[in-house]
């Protein structure tokens, strides 16, 4: 965890590879078996460029990015995103690379003590934003 957190503090950027196997695992864990997340045939029938990642998986990875920085998944008290563009996941060993970065945009006193940091998150796939208006609220000790 960054020793001093202030407005403007940047989170260490991370990138996450998402493969078809990850989509299958997330489908099972979340119960979202929509075939656009595992079937090329169905994905192309509905006009998608290919099988796409669950938006909620991309959001979860954003949550993981923030909780990893905070060092505590129970510190993440708010997460908000707009799904602006799909993450297309090819059927190969490389998968899709999603790059996360973010910075602290506000700090406030938390009602129960400690502080709440507001974090603006950027998530890029092939250089383009996949999560718009992505914001997290994290409790700091």
């Amino acid at each position, binding site marked *: 965890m960054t020793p001093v957190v202030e407005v403007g503090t940047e989170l260490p950027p991370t990138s*996450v590879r998402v493969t078809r196997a*990850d989509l299958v*695992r*997330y489908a*099972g*864990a*979340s*119960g*979202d078996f929509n075939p656009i997340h595992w079937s090329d045939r169905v994905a192309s029938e509905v006009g998608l460029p290919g099988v796409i990642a669950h*938006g*909620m*998986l991309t*959001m*979860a*990875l954003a*949550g*993981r990015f923030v*909780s*990893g920085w905070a*060092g*505590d*998944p*129970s510190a*993440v*008290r*708010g*997460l*908000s*995103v*707009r*799904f602006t563009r799909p993450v297309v996941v090819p059927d190969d060993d490389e998968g899709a690379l999603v790059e996360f970065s973010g910075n602290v945009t506000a700090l406030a006193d938390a009602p129960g003590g400690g502080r709440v940091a507001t974090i603006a998150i950027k998530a890029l796939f092939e250089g383009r934003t996949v999560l718009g*208006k992505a914001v997290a609220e994290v409790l700091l000790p």
Partner: protein
Amino acid sequence: MPDASFVGRAFPGAEPYRVGREKVREFARAVGETSPLCHDVAAAQAAGHPDVVAPPTFAASFTMPLIEQVLRDPDFGWDYAHMVHGDQTITLHRPIHAGDELAVTVHVEDLTTRAGSHRLTLRCEIADPAGEPVATTKLLLVTAEAA
């Protein structure tokens, strides 16, 4: 055309959702969350939690069956097959743990139509058996009118 009279209605789940320890671990693995707080009961308890901690988006995941039930209600007339997920917000009033019994109520907040596209806002209130709020989630779903 979805029935606008659904706006303002609330749909409580038939029974509370019981958060399973192995489900929390499975979900954490699926989203790449390796924190011991999500996997190791002793580590979670040492940090002051009653059991393993669910990753934040778990709150939205387990509400989906009830949301689907509302969306597939034939009286509502929602075009389930052609919708996309627009926005998602999750607010945790406290962390969710294995062993929690959580009651979910889906509120139909808003429905607007612009240029043949319907925009539906749903809010889920998640509470413990004493009625204390645990989490609030909000989602925007968008459909195009079938041609």
